[in-house]
């Protein structure tokens, strides 16, 4: 049975349809990349799954997580699922952390919300989480403020937060786009490792085919809110059918990636 089943998902903002009849399926522990250019509706698809669409955006169709229909659920029910069954890592590490809350408290926030940990247990769990994502000096780090961390470190905090409750589904919305190239590679390796370890299903959103090819065996291509191609990354890279996908592949090759190193 599939963990996440999106069918006929459309998102409308003020009369304009920005995501149109998208259908995706994700088995437990499976990885799927959703790629497309900016404005193609990748992020809105992710936010629709999380039930976090901005004011004025309306989603129709069906999104099922473990058989439970998410669209139309109340805020209270969604809050119970968010951070517990499904979690998200965001694109901008610089702004995804509350500047007035110490790292440790933010790290343990999902655990306090969903596991009912008290302050003490949460503080201990935060140190553990920080160590898990390879942050240096976790004991000291949990007591620091977000502005004292580098972008890469903050993104690790974001990842640790998302995976704190061992959710069944992790949505990563361009988690490496805002990072330096060298840090990007580390981050991808870490993501790969942790998702593997926890058996988390991954929906990886990106505009970069070269990045996703290493991580996800399956890829779906979104263009102007429509799904134009979906299949094994290997096949899509070798024989892209849709003209847009062909351009994506060409672009990835042009940036010095000529021997595709494709995930299993």
């Amino acid at each position, binding site marked *: 049975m599939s963990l996440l089943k999106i069918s006929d998902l459309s998102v409308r903002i003020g009369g304009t349809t920005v995501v149109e009849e998208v259908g995706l399926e994700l088995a437990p522990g499976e990885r799927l990349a959703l790629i497309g250019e900016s404005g193609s509706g990748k992020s809105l698809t992710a936010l629709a799954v999380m039930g976090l669409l901005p*004011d004025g955006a309306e989603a129709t169709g069906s999104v099922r997580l473990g058989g439970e229909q998410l669209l139309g659920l109340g805020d209270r029910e969604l*809050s119970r699922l*968010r*951070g517990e069954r499904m979690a998200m890592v965001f694109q901008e590490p610089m702004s*995804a952390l509350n500047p007035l809350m110490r790292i440790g408290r933010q790290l343990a926030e999902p655990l306090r919300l969903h596991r009912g940990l008290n302050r003490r247990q949460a503080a201990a769990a935060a140190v553990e989480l920080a160590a898990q994502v390879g942050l240096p000096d976790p004991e000291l*780090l949990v*007591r*620091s403020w977000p502005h004292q*961390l580098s972008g890469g470190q903050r993104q690790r905090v974001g990842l640790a937060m*998302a995976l704190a409750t061992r959710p069944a589904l992790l949505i990563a919305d361009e988690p490496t786009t805002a990072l330096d190239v060298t840090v990007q590679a580390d981050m991808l390796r870490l993501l790969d490792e942790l998702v593997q370890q926890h058996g988390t299903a991954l929906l990886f959103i990106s505009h970069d085919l070269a990045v996703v090819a290493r991580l996800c065996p399956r890829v779906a291509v979104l263009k102007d809110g429509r799904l134009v191609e979906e299949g094994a990354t290997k096949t899509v890279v070798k024989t892209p059918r849709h003209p847009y996908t062909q351009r994506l592949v060409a672009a990835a090759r042009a940036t010095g990636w000529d021997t595709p190193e494709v995930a299993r």
Partner: protein
Amino acid sequence: MSVPLALRALLRSRNGLVGCVLVGVLVLSALVSLVWTPYDPTLVRPQDGWLLPFSGGHLLGTDRLGRDELSQLLTGARSTLRTALLAAAVAAVVGLALALTAVLLPRWPGAAVVQLTDVLIAFPVLLIAMILTAVHGGSTWTVITAIGVGAGVNLARVARAEAARVLDTDYVLAAHAAGSGTWRTVRKHLLPNIAPTLIVQLSLVLSVAVLAEAALSFLGFGTPAPAVSWGRMLYEQQAYIAARPLLVIWPGIAVAASVLGFNLLGDGLREATDARLRVREVTPV
């Protein structure tokens, strides 16, 4: 940023320091007047009228009715400070309530709250106070309510813009994605992040309140006699300004210094809480 650190940053700026001193003098005068004044500020002794400073045991002299000027100033500080603080408290409650309902309610009810706020802003504080006084009679509470509501709607506009900005940030989205409910998000993420702006605004509300209280008692809409206030002192002495200018100058200075004090304190607080001027703690990593 921790509180002691913010205080240190506040005292380091010249504005903040001067503001703290002026407000400190006001607070100290009010506190002293609670336990001691040289004379009873309302004691009328016509035989001691019009005494000059440093005469007859009166440091700042007496007015027409022989009331001690210094005692009146000290007691006036108390009513000024009390009115200003309570009005600021009312303003904070009104402003926060309006701002939060405006940003948290769904679309049209939220917009309605914004419109209501904008309409209320159009009424000057003094006008609201005079209307309330005309209806309910003059009392300290009428003045506090009027100033508090008047300043509160102005505060609501600033607070709403700031709250909308914070609600739009990625960390609020991330908090929701982690399963935080609306009220928890408001408590843990929204309020702490709009607090610096609110505190600065509230110190400015205090200065407006001092001025408004003085103006209202000057116009005869304040706390009725025999209560002592700086505005009333100005009102009572204005007819004799040519004969005894000092009796008008003292309460005038008191009002001006208090308003300046709260304004400078606000400026200092803004500088102290400005992220770009923040003192960094030692980076652990």
